[in-house]
């Protein structure tokens, strides 16, 4: 008989080992899945996990990892605070879109003036946009006790509608002969977020690393991080310790919204280059997986975002070179979260094998 026995305290070893184990299990079961689809499992796994880094075209793929990873890190760092405190902002995708729209609006409004002040203003507008969008579920939760999961999620669809309306209407490129989509921001030197396009460097990468450092310090050294952790583990104890739950909800929602908004702004002014109907590609949702895969820990999030970016790029290679269906890649990513949650039990429990009849 298999028994689960609660550990007196969480295991340190397993806290770090479970993400690795989850990745290994995903590779094994992913391989089985690919074999069932008629592909060579070893080749497919190698294509997805190793080719972006080590193949002869790695010089092209490596910068892509930065580009895909940066928004994931930014958003996941913001979410990790709320998730630790038991505040579930599921609508980062919407805040990402609104941040992009607000930031782009500032840039487009100044077109074609050139000034060093334009890009900082766009950054502020992007952060404020995401913040404001996240404050809607935050405020409703504090004031009326609504569920922030539902409200923030539904606001994603509102944001998507706004995005298409902007791409087709107010922000459409006047010189674009009726084509949907705004002006190309990367061709507007004062407004682009690129630092070095061929190296994959844009301001989002810089901000992502700053966010990681700040999050690390806040969580380990600052009373705010302590209050966040305490609230997530024991809400009543947090209240007794003097944490104001309403204030914490607003701060955590606002923080994750602002970071998601920033991610959106850097994306629209860089890799995506314009406001278009299909601007958002699900970073806001993938970041939820990244946050948990990274154990809600800043350094873990960086590693997890790198891994997710890898599967994105490797998945694209596998699609074009091996003819793998796109859904198989999404399945692989879902599998990763599934295995992580499943093996997570080892952190707090140990498995004991007992022979039948001795109980």
């Amino acid at each position: 008989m298999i028994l689960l026995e609660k550990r007196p305290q969480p295991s340190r070893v397993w806290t770090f080992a479970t993400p690795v184990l989850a990745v290994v299990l995903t590779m094994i079961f992913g391989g089985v899945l690919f074999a069932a689809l008629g592909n060579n499992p070893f080749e497919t796994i190698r294509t997805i996990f190793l080719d972006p880094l080590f193949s002869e075209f790695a010089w092209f793929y490596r910068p892509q990892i930065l580009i895909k990873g940066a928004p994931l890190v930014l958003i996941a760092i913001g979410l990790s605070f709320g998730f630790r405190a038991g505040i579930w902002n599921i609508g980062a995708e919407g805040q990402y879109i609104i941040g992009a729209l607000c930031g782009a609006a500032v840039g487009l409004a100044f077109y074609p003036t050139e000034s060093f002040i334009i890009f900082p203003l766009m950054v502020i507008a992007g952060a404020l946009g995401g913040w404001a969008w996240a404050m809607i579920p935050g405020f409703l939760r504090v004031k009326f006790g609504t569920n922030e999961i539902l409200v923030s999620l539904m606001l994603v669809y509102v944001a998507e509608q706004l995005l298409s309306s902007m791409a087709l209407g107010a922000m459409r490129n006047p010189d674009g002969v009726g084509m949907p989509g705004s002006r190309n921001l990367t061709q507007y030197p004062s407004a682009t977020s690129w630092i070095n396009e061929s190296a994959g460097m844009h301001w989002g990468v810089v901000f992502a690393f700053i966010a990681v450092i700040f999050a690390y310090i806040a969580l380990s050294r600052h009373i705010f991080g302590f209050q966040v952790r305490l609230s997530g583990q024991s809400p009543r104890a947090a209240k007794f310790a003097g944490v104001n739950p309403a204030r914490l909800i607003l701060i955590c929602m606002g923080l994750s919204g602002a970071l998601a908004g920033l991610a959106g702004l850097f994306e629209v002014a860089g890799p995506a280059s314009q406001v278009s109907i299909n601007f958002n590609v699900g970073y806001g949702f993938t970041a939820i997986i990244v946050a948990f895969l990274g154990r809600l820990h800043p350094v873990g999030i960086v590693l997890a975002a790198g891994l997710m970016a890898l599967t994105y790029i490797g998945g694209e290679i596998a699609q074009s070179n091996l003819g793998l269906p796109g859904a198989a890649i999404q399945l692989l990513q879902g599998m990763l979260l599934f295995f992580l949650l499943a093996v997570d039990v080892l952190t707090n429990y140990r498995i004991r094998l007992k022979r039948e009849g001795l109980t």
Partner: protein
Amino acid sequence: MTDPLLRLTGLTKAYPGVIANKDVSFDIGRGEVHALLGENGAGKSTLVKTIYGLVKPDSGKMTLEGAPFQPAEPRAARAAGVAMVFQHFSLFDAMNVAENIALGMENPPAQSEIAARVLAVSDQYGLPLDPSRIVGELSAGERQRVEIIRCLLQDPKLLIMDEPTSVLTPQEVAILFETLRKLSAEGTAILYISHKLEEIRALCETATVLRLGEVVATCDPRATSARDMAELMVGSTLHVPEKAARDVGDVVLSLKNLSAKAPHRFGTSLRNISLDVRKGEVLGIGGVAGNGQDELVAALSGEMPTGADMLHYKGKAIGQMRPNERREIGLLAAPEERMGHAAAPDMSLTENAIMTATTRQRLTTRGFLHWAKARGFAEQVIKAFDVRTPGPQNAARSLSGGNLQKFVIGREIMQDPEVLVVNQPTWGVDASAAAAIRQALLDLASKGAAVICISQDLDELMEISDRFAALNEGRLSAPRPARGLTVDEIGLMLGGAHDMEVAHDSA
């Protein structure tokens, strides 16, 4: 008929890391009221769970009326005539008494028949209970009666009662004892688990004392002093808290018509509580659980803000102050629930020290934590209060209840409060740890602090309080000097025994 009713021989049960019962043997005779004594963790509950079929022993055997008795599950135990009243009731609030009783039956008869049987049994044993009342409206004592009657309907040979009096007023205890004596006279044996020694002396004929899973003594409680029994339980000389002579000083905290709505559906509203607390005194507040204790602590700690003028601290209105502002000026509190309220189970003891000590111990500068200092403070608490743990890096949940309680109370006392509010400071704590905590509270008062001790344990309150007041349905009685209060007076202050006396007279 020389066979005892139940004979336990060499019962042993080990869990990983602990031996809960080791070679336990004793007999319970027919109609005997047998006490099972022991500190927390002595193995009492494992033993009764073995008898009730919830735990299978590793070795040893039991015989019931001479026949081997190995219940595989509680149903088998019940069929053999063993019934048990648990400390925590398993009743559905939204259903009436008869429905609740029917739920526990294998083949429940019609409601009207159950009601008739409930009435018959309650009449026979002096346990007044209306089968049609909704359980949610019953007092704790009445709920316990539902559980007892549920057992009695099975006509048990052995009735096991686990800490039955912890939720009762003195009058309700008297009624319960009356019933138990009647049952015993009719031949039903009772295995009575408690750590309230005076009760055992009043009720039981034989006591088996367990310590660390082993039977260490068997005695006649009527002929043994409470102190001797306590020492048998603890295994060492018991330290009785001493009250040092002290001067009672100025009023430091006053409650003026403190009223507050219940914070949630199952809470109790506080109604017009007025009280002056003086420096150097221990004010005991008694009452049955659920009469506003949690809410009163929350109002004092700042978790539940009230009208500003309802609370005055050294003449200043503080009803709207936040918890940490109150800590800053010297008003500290320790709530009842250790896990998840007074302490965060998954956090280390250092982090649990940070929880309430940041303000007074200056554990932060501009919000940045001083981990070394926090760790040092946690170590001080561990040392001063003899908390048994390998070190402050251990998670709070790895500590036993008594040790964590010592840490939680110690954490507040080590911060030098001017007013300390504690709720159930020794709940579920073994006798020696309880004595240490009470002594620490008395020492704090003798240093000039005011201590408000809220507790359901009247013996504890009488031992340490200078003045005594009772909470009943959110109202506080006028405090009276604790010295010289009789049990009857306390009972009346606690809200009396509801409507039971009448039924008892007729029984």
